[in-house]
């Protein structure tokens, strides 16, 4: 009875596969784009190396000042030289990278979580919920966040990595929320959502089990790019003196040494490796993000 429907030949050629915007496409995209592939592998290896090696470094020992080794040049004693306090740059680079990445990661995670939840909910429900959240979002957009962050940092008496993460997160979820909201708005108007509604599926289920997976590639892109941005943000604040305490190694601390012209010009080993590491991380993340974005956007796909 069904033979006339099923074009058996062409049907069987489809293997069991995920939807076209899923991982297959992403993998195909990476295979096509050598640069993105290289970035991905490089990123992976670097991060792995950093996190593994970091476990073997004792931060207290590393951050011991030994004045006589001040600005020791790269060489036998210090692989990448030493900083003003005679502390090994290479060690700080690794711990710093770990700290900075961890911070960026958590900030990305927290802002991503809030931003996605708020965006999805407002976009899905619309109406007064949307109105209220949009007011809040508008308000946050009005806030000159850099300034408020600076005020907050000076205000808070005990200011550590955790506080830093939370302060950053307070202001950075807004962009994500806006983006997700607009995507969720269009996605919520699609008929499969309507279908689920008419079939009595719960709103929360629709939002998180139906809409969210369909936005996943956009969310991934947004998160990657946020991550890259957050790595950079810490640097800027450290430069202004509102970043982490200098005793906590971070990429931002190392780079902000460049603020001293003598170091900038002559003691390149203090700030350059960290800068290059940041550059590499940002480039790699961006190229990876670009590839994911392409796979999310059929128009720009390479494969």
């Amino acid at each position, binding site marked *: 009875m069904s033979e006339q429907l099923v074009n058996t030949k062409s049907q069987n050629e489809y293997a069991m596969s995920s939807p076209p915007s899923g991982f297959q496409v992403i993998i195909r995209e990476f295979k096509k784009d050598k640069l993105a592939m290289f970035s991905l592998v490089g990123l992976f290896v670097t991060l792995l190396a950093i996190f593994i090696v970091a476990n073997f470094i004792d931060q207290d020992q590393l951050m011991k000042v030994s004045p006589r080794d001040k600005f020791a040049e790269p060489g036998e004693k210090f692989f990448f030289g030493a900083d003003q306090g005679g502390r090994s740059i290479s060690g700080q680079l690794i711990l710093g990278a770990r700290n900075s990445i961890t911070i960026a990661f958590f900030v990305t995670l927290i802002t991503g979580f809030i931003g996605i939840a708020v965006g999805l909910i407002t976009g899905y429900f619309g109406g007064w919920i949307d109105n209220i959240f949009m007011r809040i979002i508008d308000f946050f957009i009005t806030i000159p966040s850099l300034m408020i962050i600076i005020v907050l940092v000076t205000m808070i008496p005990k200011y550590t990595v955790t506080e830093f993460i939370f302060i950053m997160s307070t202001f950075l979820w807004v962009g994500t929320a806006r983006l997700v909201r607009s995507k969720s708005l269009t996605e919520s108007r699609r008929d499969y959502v309507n279908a689920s509604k008419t079939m009595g599926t719960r709103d929360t289920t629709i939002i998180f089990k139906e809409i969210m997976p369909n936005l996943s590639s956009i969310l991934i892109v947004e998160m990657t790019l946020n991550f890259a941005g957050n790595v950079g943000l810490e640097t800027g604040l450290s430069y202004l003196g509102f970043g982490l305490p*200098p005793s906590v190694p971070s990429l931002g601390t190392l780079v902000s040494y460049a603020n001293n012209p003598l170091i900038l010009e002559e003691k390149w080993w203090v700030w350059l490796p960290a800068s290059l590491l940041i550059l590499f991380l940002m480039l790699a993340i961006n190229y990876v993000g670009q590839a994911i974005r392409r796979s999310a956007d059929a128009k720009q796909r390479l494969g």
Partner: protein
Amino acid sequence: ACTGNDDSSGPADLTKFPLVVDNEGEAIEGGTLKVALGTDTPFQGIFSWVLYEDSYDADIMGYASNVIFETDGEFLVNDQGIASLEVDQANNKAIVKIREGIKWSDGQALKIEDLIQPYLIIGHPDYEGVRYDGDFQNIIGAVDYHNGKADTISGLKKVDDTTLEISFTKLSPAIFSIGDGLWGYAEPSHIMKGIPVGKLLESDAVRKNPVTLGAFKFDKIVPGESIQFARNEHYWKGAAKLDGVIVKVVPTSSIAKAIETGKYDMTAGSLPATTYPEVRDFENITILAQPELSYSYLGFKLGKYDTTTGISTMDPQAKMADVKLRQAMGYALDIEQVNEVYYYGLRSRANSLIPPVFESYYDETLEGYTYNVDKANEILDEAGYVDTDGDDLRETPKGEKLEIKMASMAGDPIAEEMTTFYMQNWADVGLNVVLSTGRLIEFNSYYDKVQSDDPEIDIFMAAWSTGTNPSPAGLYGKESAFNFSRYTTPKLDELIAAIDSKKAFDIDYRANAFHEWQLYMEKNAPVIPTQFRTAIYTINDRVKHYDVNLETDFDLNQIELTAEEPIK
């Protein structure tokens, strides 16, 4: 023309830094001196000695000074200046006489009213500055005038056109270093008189075209960023040889570069010692060094200040109450290494709370707390601070864990390293010192916490600049809010009182009083001096002659240049 120090890695030897520079070459006619004002923020532009608050404004005003007294190497008034000072100890009076024929930069003659004018401004009810202080209230009638009970200050009397008589409630030797309420600058009363005191700050007379007595006069001001001075034809020591001076704000991050590339002849004010490595190899400058009127110290919290009564009381239970502990902490610090590595010898181990510039008061015989680990260990053992639980850290004599919380101020480029290093030093002798907030504290919070006797602070690293009067009354007196260690004893009060007593008008007596006080402070170590400081000046090779010696009577009007532009 590069200075001394050939050994580029070793410390600079202070003796190799000259105080004076003479450069070869024929002086050119006129010329403009280019001065860099190293700051990351615009200057405030309050060009009045009674009103300014920002030291950058003071640095600028230095080129068009209104100062009436001149002082010698120990900052005591001599008779070389516009005015001379006579003190009537018996009647608590000072008589100020001015030279005749002195003119303001606008051509008006200097009158005795111009000397009275600053007092009338500072004492005025509308005056909002800090200078209406305890010292000022020492002038008879100042308080009544300030409270609006009198139209003028009764203690100021114009004797004749060139003489002013000032009556004080009490007098101390500080009067000779222009203390006790005596004011060292004149204000042009012919201009100031017409402006209500409340409006002075906004007036053009302060902001745009102040009238001065100095070698140069204000010509043009770009608010916050640059000032052009022109030669003051009426300068009483003779018109300057230069046409003028340009002072320009330069961000601190690029000031060394600016000096190297010959954009400027010198800096307004000195350069911080940490800048030295940036400038030492420049070939177009000479580096001059001058001792600073300040010292760094390590303070111990020993009590509390009662804000209502305004009196400090000691707390015998304080963590740092044991003098042995304090002394040991002093011995444990390897300040020498820090000075050598980070300051190139531009800072030295301080042995006293009086900077050596004050030759007659400074006690060079004091040993101070030089680096000596063995001694530190010995003292601690002796005092019962021993490690009882085997964690390499000493416990209190009672056997409790000892954690000393330190406050240290952020700001100095090497503050971080220095603090960490000191904490390591203490750890080396088994003392567990931690930062009270986990990090260095920014300037405002620092003073907020230290002054309010924050319980999170046991010890603190700080610095004082003493000003020209090194009297310790304001910093270590029982009633001083700035006595941050809150250390007071009857003996100390006695010693301090002696320094500013009437007897101290006798120079030897005063010197002796200072010595005794220094000795007492060293022994009891409520604070331990750590560093004396030296300021450096970079002078471009086209400046024919420059002198930072405090004793010589070098004056701005003598400056000459040997080229049209600074040498690169």
